[in-house]
């Protein structure tokens, strides 16, 4: 009799039973499916696309093999090389200045007994507002007619500049926006790191009569080294992806002076409608950023291993 009732379990109950006994697999299944469908499959698609030329005819995609054509085009593509150089300049300049300012500010705020909460809250502002809004704000601030930056310079008798419109200042102006945008995040990460430093060590060094500079050099920086490395790596990777603000501020111009990789890949994909060639550029971009990461990781391991 008992067996009979067990067999007649309603199917929903049985489903729960199954989920229960295999919960570990069931739990991760949705994430695996999402990644397979929307990252692995598109990545394969990207590889296939890079060897073909894709055209639209009556809203239908037509693919033709064109690997050789795409590669020849790439070898001739000076805009991509320019975009790569611009991106590297952008990443190096903005990341290193953000690290410097962010660490300095974190050190200062770490000395404050009160008021850290309000500093932290304020610093969230640039991180949370949409990058597109930041682009709009700074574009208006850089405006040569009424922008606040030119108004400020006028106080010192400096004539109005076309910050975003001149090839010599455009890239630098974009870097300044990035510094405003992301220094707060570096600050937050490093402040959290400073607050997690063991207090006994700091106290002991104070008792031993260490000056602040000595502490900074022999205690804080060595202890903070891992956090500094992580912050640098994280920031440089995100900086490499830069797209939104530059799209809003200059769209890569004037000429190609602020053309960066993401923006150029976008243009090839969607403005020039070269989905195949764009895919090749996207693959090369992925290769570049992965090798950057690998070199960084190896260098770090060697560096810390040698210590």
């Amino acid at each position: 009799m008992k067996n009979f009732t067990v067999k007649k379990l309603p199917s929903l109950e049985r489903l729960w039973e199954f989920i229960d006994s295999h919960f570990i697999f069931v739990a991760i299944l949705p994430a695996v499916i999402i990644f397979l469908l929307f990252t692995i499959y598109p990545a394969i698609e990207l590889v296939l696309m890079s060897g073909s030329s894709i055209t639209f005819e009556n809203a239908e995609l037509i693919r033709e093999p064109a690997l050789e054509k795409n590669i020849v085009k790439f070898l001739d593509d000076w805009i991509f090389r320019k975009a790569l150089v611009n991106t590297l300049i952008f990443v190096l300049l903005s990341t290193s200045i953000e690290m410097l300012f962010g660490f300095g500010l974190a050190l200062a705020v770490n000395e404050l007994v009160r008021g850290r909460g309000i500093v932290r809250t304020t610093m969230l502002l640039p991180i949370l507002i949409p990058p597109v809004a930041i682009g709009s704000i700074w574009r208006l601030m850089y405006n040569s007619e009424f922008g606040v930056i030119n108004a400020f310079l006028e106080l010192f008798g400096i004539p109005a500049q076309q910050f975003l419109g001149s090839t010599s200042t455009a890239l630098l102006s974009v870097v300044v926006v990035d510094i405003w945008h992301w220094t707060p995040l570096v600050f937050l990460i490093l402040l959290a790191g400073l607050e997690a430093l063991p207090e006994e060590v700091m106290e002991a060094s104070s008792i031993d009569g260490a000056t602040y500079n000595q502490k900074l050099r022999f205690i804080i920086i060595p202890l903070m080294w891992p956090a500094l490395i992580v912050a640098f790596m994280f920031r440089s990777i995100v900086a490499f992806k830069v797209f939104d603000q530059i799209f809003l501020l200059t769209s890569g111009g004037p000429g190609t002076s602020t053309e960066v990789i993401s923006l150029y890949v976008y243009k090839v994909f969607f403005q020039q409608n070269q989905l195949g060639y764009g895919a090749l550029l996207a693959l090369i971009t992925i290769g570049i950023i992965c090798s950057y990461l690998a070199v960084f990781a190896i260098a770090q391991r060697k560096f810390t291993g040698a210590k």
Partner: protein
Amino acid sequence: MMVVNSWKRVALWCFVIFALILIIAPFIWIIGISLKYQIAIITGQFPFDVTWVNYERVLFGKSSDFLLNMFNSLVVAVISTTLVLIIATLAAYSLAWRTMSGLFKMGFLAWTLIFNIIPPITLVGPWYVIFSDLGLYNTLTALVMTHIVINLPMAIWLMMTAFGTIPRDLESAAIMDGCRRTTAFRLVLLPLVKPGMIAAGLLAFVFSWSEFGIALNLTAKETMTIPVAIASYAGQYEINHGEMAAAAVLSSLPAILLMFLGQKFIVRGLTAGSVK
């Protein structure tokens, strides 16, 4: 705490306040611009006559779809955030607690990491092709899917940290007491990882609300989100600066709200993992 003499403290505060002003000033300035008539903007009038006309035009103007855009952004952000939280919490539980095949776990986590570092624009091309093939181009469904994908790595990592802080005995005790594993998960574990979920949820919401690169290429007029609409303001032949400013301010409102209400969770979410 070290003893800092009062002069040093004053200097310290001056430095910090200067930095805070630099951070806030652009935003104050843009609010000012958004409240000015076009003519007052160009002549740099100060003090100026306050007007709401820019906001009115952005929100209710004939040629403006801003309310629709806002609705689209909200729908995409809310749905994708909810789904991300569910999927990520389950996955993190599985990854953080269960001893799975090490290779699978490592491969999975490595993939989330790699996916997180490559520029999203590189995958927008294939996404565009795939969604066009499926007839999902220019639908909110496609946008929700992609926003789930881009936020999933962050959410999984945050939730793994959250599960790492709970003693495992709690679960085994609940199961020993006759609780089902799923019930134990729901009633015992979920309340404990709530702070992590709030942090991940807030960040996922903000990222989805602000996301531009994907929305730009997968949406058209009816499905356009706020960031794309703002970019189209800037692209117009004759830019109305006041409206551009008003749109920027409006798009930042959710962020400002969250900044005050959820700052603790957001700071935790943004700095988690980097400290260890």
